[in-house]
């Protein structure tokens, strides 16, 4: 654990992060952009990464942490290989997306916001991906699945389980 705390991931990751900080540091209001890039590099924002960003920009860690925890897009915890996002926007909700979420939770045995033990899936809810014409929808990674019913959920998840075997 000690070891992890000190380092910012692999050497390549650390280099990429340094490059991002260097390239953006003079732009006013660059913190959010850097956090977005950092999350793209690491998949989430572990504390050492936040510390490094704070040092790189010459601002306090509390400021970085404050921004990282304010926006729902940023995560301080690792996410699954396949990130499931069930839309709970209004159009999806009135078409029963809460039941889709329940089914996903039941199928994977975890709750919304958690990650499966094998690291394969994590579940989140989101507010509107703008595909309201296909409500209810969920996303797995970048793929959008629309016009869902609870009985379609298992089949979709099985495809991903199959693919990673």
């Amino acid at each position, binding site marked *: 654990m000690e070891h992890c705390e000190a380092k910012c991931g692999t050497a390549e990751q650390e280099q990429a992060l340094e490059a991002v900080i260097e390239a953006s540091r003079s732009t006013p209001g660059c913190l959010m*952009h850097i956090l977005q890039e950092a999350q793209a590099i690491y998949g989430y924002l572990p504390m050492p990464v936040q510390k490094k960003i704070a040092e790189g920009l010459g601002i306090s860690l509390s400021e970085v942490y404050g*921004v990282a925890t304010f926006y729902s897009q940023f995560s301080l915890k690792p996410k699954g290989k396949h990130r499931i996002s069930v839309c709970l926007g209004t159009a999806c909700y*009135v078409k029963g997306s809460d039941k889709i979420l329940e089914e996903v939770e039941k199928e994977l045995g975890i709750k919304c916001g958690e990650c499966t033990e094998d690291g394969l899936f994590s579940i989140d809810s*989101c507010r509107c991906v703008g*595909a309201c014409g296909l409500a209810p929808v969920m996303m797995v990674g970048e793929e959008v699945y629309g016009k869902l019913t609870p009985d379609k959920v298992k089949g979709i998840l099985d495809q991903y389980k199959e693919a990673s075997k």
Partner: protein
Amino acid sequence: MTVKELDALRAKKQQLIDVRRLVREQAEEMAKHTGYRKQVLVCGGTGCTSSHSKQVIEHLEKTMAECDIHDVLVVKTGCFGLCTLGPIMIVYPEGAFYAQMTPEHVETVVKKHLIPGGEIVKELLYQDTVHTDGSITPFAETPFYKKQMRIALRNCGVIAAEDIEEAIAAGDYAAVEKVLTTMSPDDVIKEVLDSGLRGRGGAGFPTGRKWSFAKASAGDVKYVCCNADEGDPGAFMDRSVLEGDPHCVLEAMTIAGYAIGAHQGYIYVRAEYPIAVERLKIAIKQAHEYGLLGKNILDSGFDFDIDIRLGAGAFVCGEETALMTSIEGHRGEPRPRPPFPAVKGLFGKPTILNNVETWANINPIIMKGAKWYSSIGTEKSKGTKVFALGGKITNVGLVEVPMGTTLREIIEEIGGGIPNGKKFKAAQTGGPSGGCIPADLIDTPIDFDNLVAIGSMMGSGGLIVLDEDTCMVDLSKFYLEFTADESCGKCTPCRIGTRRLLDMLTKITEGKGEEGDIEKIEALAEHMKSSSLCALGQSAPNPVLSTLHHFRNEYEDHIKNHHCTAGVCKALLSYTIDKEKCIGCGLCARNCPVSAISKTDYTAPGHKLPSMAIDQTKCIKCGVCQSNCKFKAVERK
């Protein structure tokens, strides 16, 4: 680029665009001059992309190559509006509107229609365009499109979204040309002021006034911002404009920059809209290449540039001061007003902020004039409004209608009514800040002021249709969950108020409501409205107050009778089996996850097996028994 070069560029693809806008006979004539026998427009908006329009395009190009067709142009556009029937594909000059395309359908269309001498494949068309006698109506004449008036969406679904030359040919950048060559900043502001255009982001503040305040503010550095943080769930018009016609936003921001004396613009867009972000980036790059952004635009000596800032998922950032704080790289918390952004906004400088749909109206106002624009709409709400129709409605999608169109026209005519023979109960507008329009007010002409008068608001234009199966208490709870979650926490009335309202609503939906709860809710709501810092907290109680106003009986039913009128709130439901209808097949019992169903001693006359019954102490009200029963013997009350 010079004005002359821009004019030449506009003429270059003009005929190509005209083919898509003319009636069939004229379009066929025009097509002869374009070098393309046919044009196929495929929607590449988020809705259709989610229904795999990418594969449709790939397959289309592949099959055309196989069939040796090289004189048909394939165009990837933005949204056509009828998202529920995606992926959509339109073939010009005929204007044949194909819906729900699959790779197999694409193959059929290529081989039967796109080949030389081919015929329209009627059975694959959007069925509303085919008459019972087999003749075909132009899609613009179908109920969904007929009553629409497309001003903001004029180029969406008409042009290739990633091609600046098509945008120019369709009229983009003509207004910036007119402004920079013939109008003074004051002329521009007067035109926008006279048009009566009001902000389409929610509150409906007159756009021209905002601009004139910013112009009057002293300072060398000013900013122009575009609010594309479309956080209102169920609204997706801004996304569609950005995906379908991003240049119209860039152009309008440039015009505003000229009017107020700003040289830098920012577009704050949700990271959840990857396609829109991508198209914006392409558009900005192209505008630079063509000299329509950057230094000395059209040789006028005027400089203007635009940067994109990505949001990171915070609803409150749709509020103008929070949005600016977020662009500055901080937690997106709102600031007290005054000072208003027009005086002290982004980085402490005078700033104007308009939302995407507002920007999309600027070009037509400049080109056709304030008089024309103000002739559309109602007395105090001019022009059109784009609505995202969603929920329990047949034609889910994007519609643009003149202000003053009634809810009935939108729902029954354009929207095609409620599916599955259900009854219309209410329409929700304004999202988490708005309220409901009940069925008895369906003939209200929709504009800014009428909506406020009946306790809702225009908001950004999400219009969610609710049928008899929607519980209004549950819906309010849904919105409060949203606002409680999205409250930034800076001011107490909103932070604690939303939480307490949610607690009370949860209590009611769980059947634990007490006499006096409604009054407590109303009192708290008033405090939140009067003392929250920003619009999020001030409007958060609206969904509750509005449903209380129009559907108070449902709240009372929950509290006094422990009964959910619509049969939604789980804690108040019970499932029972009608012993006369039950044939005793046992399918429900086998599927019950908690083994709550067992045989009784009673066999109904005419049936061979004893009927089943549900043990209410074990039942978790999941509804599996009801969905499995083929004899409609399971009742939910």
